[in-house]
């Protein structure tokens, strides 16, 4: 029942915070967000499942609840939640980042605070739902419901072009979800199952129960479903060429929202890909492995090249997110323990690192009121601690060893290189690895121009060192990044447990 409690408490907290006076809203929201954080940490410590939630039985799912809810058209809807080694790290990531994001919002968010924090908590509740739900219907409701608070968070508290960004984000991801939804339902109706429970669906597909539809062969039905699901999730990840909403959304979104957007929301896409595309339809994934790997490599290199061309710090980090998420796709399609496990680990690692980067850029923006590379220099002189952490975070992004990013990227590269599913795997891996050079290029260039050199600032604000409510979340994030980099087994152990069954189904191609 702990998952229900987690989601329920967060929803409740959202409601309470919504009607709190503005002056207390931030503190109350932070306090309330510690509850799900504590709950998720408890889940982490008490986690005892081994196996994959979709492929195994009850033993593969920790904290499972399954309640029949209602029946529609011969198919049963249920409240079915549980976590395994893939979803638990993401649950912890969500609660952890939300708390820190709320803390980092105290300074920049000055109007309509109650609504802001209420929406953030509402989003957190839905995110928890996305990562724990094991029934398609419930999952889809949470999946869509995440968009709503995000739309308002960007649209109300965003920058000058916030309306454009919010609508673009909402419509783009929503259309993608619709496509995904239609084809998934189509797939389910071509199965002999009487439930929307994801484990049942997965196991039915693997048992070869997909039937033809409208004169299409079963394999075509699966391929179509795979393509639609991939498209639906690729927009969320985002995979090039479906990425253009991301920089707009990030640039307009206020810092704490960027943190959550990059840190957690993008992971919904890769998480769903892992669950649906790569776990349910491994044979299709293996057949089109090369195509998917091309998407991945293009995302990595092209995203990095775009980041190189940007002058806005937030845009740089946004495009580098595109690049980093490309690694995840590459790891997933490798179908090796290290590849898929590393991809999952990268979701957590990138969540923390990009969160740190956005937060640090936000702290700088709070002081300087500019994010343009050309309009400031020598900030290290005025804000040494913030800049120090930003540098550390940037090196984390570059994959510096003993930080979480390196562990994840190394696992992915190793997994991709040794992949037997992917033809010419070493070439794909080597091509993607070149991303680590470009990422170093643009981050070092941007850092040199903004942080070092003689102090100059175009805006006429007096820059002082940031206060503790701003630097403490940064420091906590940095420590967690180093911790995961030094001891990846904290998560990697349970991840490999959950990932291995995926590799055993579907057979080789």
């Amino acid at each position: 029942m702990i998952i229900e409690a987690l989601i329920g408490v967060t929803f409740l907290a959202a409601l309470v915070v919504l009607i709190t006076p503005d002056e207390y809203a931030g503190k109350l929201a932070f306090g309330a967000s510690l509850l799900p954080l504590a709950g998720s940490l408890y889940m982490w410590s008490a986690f005892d499942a081994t196996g994959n939630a979709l492929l195994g039985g009850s033993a593969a799912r920790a904290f499972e609840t399954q309640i029949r809810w209602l029946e529609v058209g011969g198919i049963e809807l249920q409240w079915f939640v549980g976590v395994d080694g893939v979803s638990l790290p993401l649950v912890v990531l969500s609660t952890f980042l939300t708390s820190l994001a709320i803390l980092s919002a105290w300074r920049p968010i000055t109007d309509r605070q109650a609504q802001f924090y209420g929406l953030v908590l509402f989003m957190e509740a839905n995110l928890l739902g996305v990562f724990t739900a094991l029934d398609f219907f419930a999952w889809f409701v949470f999946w869509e419901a995440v968009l709503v608070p995000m739309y308002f968070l960007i649209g109300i508290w965003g920058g000058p072009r916030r309306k454009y960004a919010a609508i673009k984000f909402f419509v783009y991801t929503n259309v993608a979800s619709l496509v995904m939804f239609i084809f998934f339902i189509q797939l389910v109706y071509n199965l002999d199952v009487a439930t929307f429970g994801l484990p049942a669906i997965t196991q039915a597909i693997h048992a070869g129960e997909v039937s033809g539809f409208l004169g299409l062969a079963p394999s075509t039905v699966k391929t179509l479903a795979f393509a639609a699901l991939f498209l639906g999730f690729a927009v969320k990840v985002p995979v090039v060429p479906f990425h253009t909403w991301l920089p707009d959304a990030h640039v307009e979104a206020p810092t704490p929202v960027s943190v959550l957007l990059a840190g957690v929301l993008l992971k919904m896409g890769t998480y769903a890909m892992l669950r649906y595309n790569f776990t349910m339809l491994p044979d299709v994934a293996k057949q089109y492995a090369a195509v998917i790997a091309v998407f991945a490599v293009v995302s990595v290199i092209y995203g990095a090249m775009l980041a190189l061309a940007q002058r806005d710090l937030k845009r740089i980090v946004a495009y580098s997110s595109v690049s980093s998420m490309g690694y995840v796709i590459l790891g997933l399609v490798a179908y090796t323990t290290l590849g898929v496990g590393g991809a999952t680990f990268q979701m957590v690692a990138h969540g923390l690192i990009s969160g740190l980067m956005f937060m640090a850029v936000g702290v700088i923006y709070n002081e300087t009121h500019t994010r343009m590379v050309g309009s400031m220099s020598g900030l290290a002189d005025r804000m040494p601690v913030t800049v120090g952490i930003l540098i550390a975070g940037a090196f984390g992004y570059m994959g510096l060893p003993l930080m979480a990013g390196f562990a994840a990227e190394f696992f992915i590269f190793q997994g991709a290189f040794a992949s037997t599913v992917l033809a010419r795997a070493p070439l794909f891996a080597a091509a993607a690895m070149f991303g680590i050079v470009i990422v170093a290029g643009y981050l070092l260039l941007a850092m040199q121009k903004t942080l070092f050199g003689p102090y100059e600032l175009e805006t006429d604000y007096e820059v002082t060192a940031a206060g503790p409510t701003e630097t403490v979340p940064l420091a906590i994030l940095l420590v967690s990044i180093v911790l995961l980099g030094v001891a990846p087994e904290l998560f990697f152990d349970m991840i490999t447990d959950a990932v291995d069954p995926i590799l055993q189904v579907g057979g080789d191609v």
Partner: protein
Amino acid sequence: MSAAFTYAPLIVALPFLSFLIALAAGLADRDVLPKGGAIPGILATLGSLALSAWVALTVAGGAVFDETIYEWAVAAGVESQLELSFGLLLDPLSAMMLVIVCLVATLVHVFSLGYMNDEGETGLPRYYAGLGLFTASMLGFVVSDNLLQSFVFFELVGLCSYLLIGFHFREPGPPSAAKKAFLVTRFGDYFFLVGLVGIVATFGTAQFGGAESFPHVAELVLAGEASVRTFGFAPETWFTILGLLVLGGVIGKSAQFPLHTWLPDAMEGPTPVSALIHAATMVAAGVFLVARMYGFYAVSPTALAIVALVGGFTALFAATMGLVKRELKQVLAYSTISQYGYMMLALGTGGYVAATFHLLTHAFFKALLFLGAGSVIIAMHHNENMWDMGGLRKRMPVTYATFLVGSLALAGIVPFAGFWSKDEVLYEALIHGLGTEGSLGTVFLAAYAMGLLAVLFTGFYTFRMVALTFHGEPRTDLAADPESVGWNVKGPLSVLGLLAATTGFLNLAPVKKLTGAKVDFLHQWLEGPEGAALMATLSAKHYKHLLHDVNPAQVTASELGPLLPAALSLGLAITGALVAFRLYATPEPTEHTAKLGGLQDVLYNNYYQDEYQVWLATNVVQPLAGVADTVDQSLVDGVVNGVSSVSLSSGSRIRRIQTGVVSNYAALVTLGLTALLVAFGLYEGWLL
């Protein structure tokens, strides 16, 4: 297990602790620690030095150690169990390197008291934190027992280099140099990473030593006694590819052509940092790595040839650039590149011991030269231009004496350390070139020729530097009245001066050849203790076996006496030195570069190496990024926005139907209904 090995992890941990202390001090308040954090650093490096010496003694006593101490990650998958771990490999090679690194690090910490503290620099905790982290990373690299760990610390060393080069971040130059250093080495590290991943994927392990180690498995595969996945290549080809990929990292870190461009720029960092990082230790990391996994290179003729050629070419190429530099540290920077070229040359031509020997002596004499340069720079109030110096000999006798010792060692004048090691490098290259059949022998000889020619230039630029700095008459007021330096400068100089003069006697291989006396201690040392199973795959003897018996090109040494080659290289070095002295050790020296004609510009501009790399970055990569951005904004996002505007505009057309006149709606409804009825009627067949 010996007690020394139990405490060995502390060698790495102590400097790391000093890093943490300095970091905490920097975060708290700058006056928390006396001397800005230098004291913990000195104590920690001293502790590490003592422990390293203990380890070295234990190794000398016949014990070696190779154990995993931390499981970093385990991929227990369906394919196979893959363990990624950190461990300690303490054998003669790493024990020797530990002592070098700890010793130089200690001396540099002490020297920093004079160079940084006494000069009133700010941000000292940051400086000492950087030094501490650097020392820890370098030591972690040295004790690595597998390639992954090497890579990890290799990168951390690069980070420290970045932080320390950019120490004076308020000026425009250092941050730029720091960026360049990290970026260029990162480019090399990319290949290293690909190679590392490839090695792990191929062998399922990255261990250096033991029966399960990848060099040994590679050897077995080539002998047909084992098989690994070689991704569609013949094993020899694949191993060569992997070796060359790892070599990419080596070329970056050890500043070999064409990735050497960062090192001269890195002189923007404080001079002690140049001494520690860019001369004695970090740059040595690359060469050390090749020595560490030498068994993997020894079996591949192509890899050896490329290592030898890169080394020989770099030795010559960098030496020529050193000829015309005006700044003291620039000359030293190019000499560093050149000297590492010699080490690569030795490794490529099968001179494993010679390379290690040169690594050892070079660490001491180059650290000495850099610290001596630091002393001069203090005296000259941070003016580095040699043409503003002159006549410092009388005013700085200690610095002059030690600097001269270092220069004699660098130029390779008997009996200073550099002579013995460089002579052995060239001698090994020559005899292997003469003894090896086929094209590999020719390549060795070509590399030897380049190395030999570089000796002449080395002698010249070294003594040009000495003459301009210390001889003649003072050319500026600064040089006439230099600032005095304290004990903390002279002390390290004296220690290093002593070492630079004497370390050559550790390995008198030519003397052994001539007299038969067993004075080639380093050879014996690297042969390893008898009976230790680990040394079966890591000893110099084993490498000889690999070169000769497993390598298809059969690298063989010819029976040439050591006297003639030694005399040749010594003669060249002395010639170069004398010419330089004749030209520059005059009361009023003038620049003779104009005699070089067109070559002068080429040399001043370092063969336009920087230019083409910067051109690549600004005229190719950046425009490419710009094009990508334009494409992204106009095409990719254009499609998205296009879809949206098509929807919007078609919507605004279609909404014209919405006239607001109720009658029209009614008409539409009626028409629609009629149409539906007709359609149904036709379809069902009751109409018509």
